[in-house]
């Protein structure tokens, strides 16, 4: 067994976990269980990131998706439904549209995958030459930092402004006027 096989085993483990989690989101009848299996799925994705030497992304995946977004989803579920009731049955009214949309998504993903050029050099994919040099001496977090703050600073700032707009928009929407 070569090391690559071993890593492949890890990969398939995470892949199985991700698929099982994703299936659980759709198949489980209790919406809280669906959320929990979605968390499993997101964890598996964090595992992929670790396998790809992107441990920074893995940590961020867990912090943001598991720690914040999923918790907010649980909040929304528990606050919007009758909280102490167990029979939170998920609706089945949209089976056909669901199948069509997911099939379309599957086909699209398939074509995207087969038409993508994958870089074989694992360490410095898509980095400019200077960053590739620097990356010999940098760890993953630093590479992300340099990319965001130096190379891609403009898109990074634009994304920040977008998030800020969303934030302010959220505050404005949630805020009720005094005289209401």
């Amino acid at each position, binding site marked *: 067994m070569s090391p690559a096989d071993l890593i492949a085993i890890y990969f398939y483990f995470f892949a199985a976990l991700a698929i099982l989690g994703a299936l659980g989101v759709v198949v489980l009848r209790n919406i809280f269980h669906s959320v929990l299996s979605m968390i499993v799925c997101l964890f598996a994705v964090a595992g992929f990131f670790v396998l790809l030497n992107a441990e920074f992304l*893995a940590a961020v995946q867990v*912090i943001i998706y598991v*720690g914040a977004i999923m918790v907010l989803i649980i909040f929304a579920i528990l606050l919007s439904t009758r909280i*102490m009731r167990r029979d939170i049955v998920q609706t089945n009214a949209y089976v056909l549209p669901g199948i069509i949309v997911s099939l379309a998504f599957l086909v699209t993903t398939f074509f995207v995958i087969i038409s993508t050029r994958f870089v074989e*050099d694992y360490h*410095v994919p*898509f980095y400019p030459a*200077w960053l590739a040099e620097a990356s010999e001496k940098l760890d993953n977090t630093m590479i992300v930092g*340099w990319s965001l703050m130096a*190379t891609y600073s403009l898109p990074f700032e634009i994304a920040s402004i977008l998030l800020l707009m969303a934030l302010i928009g959220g505050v404005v929407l949630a805020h009720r006027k005094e005289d209401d």
Partner: protein
Amino acid sequence: MKALGAAPHNGILDWLFNWFYNLFLNWNMSEASAAAWASGMNQLIAFLIIVIFIVVTVLFVVLFERRVLGFFQIRHGPNRVGPQGLFQTVADALKLLQKEDIMPLAAEPITYNIAPFAVFVPSILAFVVIPMGAAYVGGSYNVLIVRDLNIGILYLLAVSSVALIGFLMAGWGSNNKYALISAFRNAAQIISYEVPMILAILGVVLVAGSTSMVDIVHSQSVVWNIVPQFVGFLIYLICGLAETNRCPFDLPEAESELVAGFHTEYSGMKFALFFLAEYTNVFVISAIITTLFLGGWKGPMFLGAGGLWLTSIFWFLAKTYIMVTIFVWLRATLPRFRVDHLMGFAWKFLVPVAVVNILVIGLGVAFSHPLYMGSPGNINERLTADARVVALTQLSSSSIYNIMFDSEKVEGPVRIIEGNGTVDFGWINTAYGAMSDDMKTFFWAYNVFAFLFLILILFTVWKVIRGVKRAPKLEVMWSAVSGGEADAKA
């Protein structure tokens, strides 16, 4: 490699490695496999040491809090079991182990039973990246740490956010309103206080230039972070209190309102897991404060900077227990916050102060103020002056558009996957070829033990789920338990 398991270059682990190596050679193993197994045994022993350390620490922290609290409250605290009550927690734990494992009829079995583990395991996992001591051997530091992850502090944040899911599971799974409200409070509190907490951590990371816990300690060899970043220290201390549900932020466990909070319905060892997780978190947060702001294993300058195993471990433990004492002190002194005050305090006070704190530290770093320099020879070792110059010239000479979209800059062989769906991990073979023999044995030993550990965890989870006997579902009892008319209909 700074891992504890990879320490076979000095001290007792080196001796152990040699001992095992010779033992396995005597068992007619080949040299390579003997080295691999010896390394594995070293890993196992390091793992055991850490586990024993955690258990002893947690048991001691519980007693420590009770005795110190007793001191503050003009009483003795537990002092009967063993000398000075040292075995009180052991006795309590043994008692809890024998208790019947009660599950409420209306509880959700899977969620209810997994929740204690989902809370307890992350608090143990946090020990992975905490540097507990160091020895200066052969021109470099050998750090007593399970694994010096380069995302160290981010890993801690990630781990603590996982425990939150466990709290929500406990709150929802118990089918108890106190537990549910408590879980809500807990989640809202932790999410709110994570924001100023991360901002306070950012100040430290700015100075250290790294998220690795070991690098952060090294960056404080001139002056501890508590001096230039006292505001950040206070913010982190407050957020740490909130994160561990300690007084005055113990709203989720507010006994006068919510009885016992999310663990109201738990009994026996499952309750003990919640209990131990809380105290583990107290120790972990104290250890993180020690690492981030109090110079970690380093002693005060005039007493030596912690160049020996024993002194460094002593300093680490001393500082950590001072922090634990402060936690207990606050608990003995302060009343509890109210929910809206809690939120207002986080968002209206802590966050702005933390932002200003970042601003000040950022200015200090930008203008190379001596207090905000970190220690020399740390970040510079990794990021050589050459790389900086290259990066800066590149940034100034080319437009961002070119850097972003010019595909000619992509290096290395490029190929197209033909769509047969194989996943290729050829790169790892290349990387493996480049490893030293030492690294190879470590690689294998690590993976073998990781698999064994994984199987152990899965087995435990399986046993837990299998072990649950579902009580017969009686409609009458159901409506009696759940109370409200809406529930009775269901």
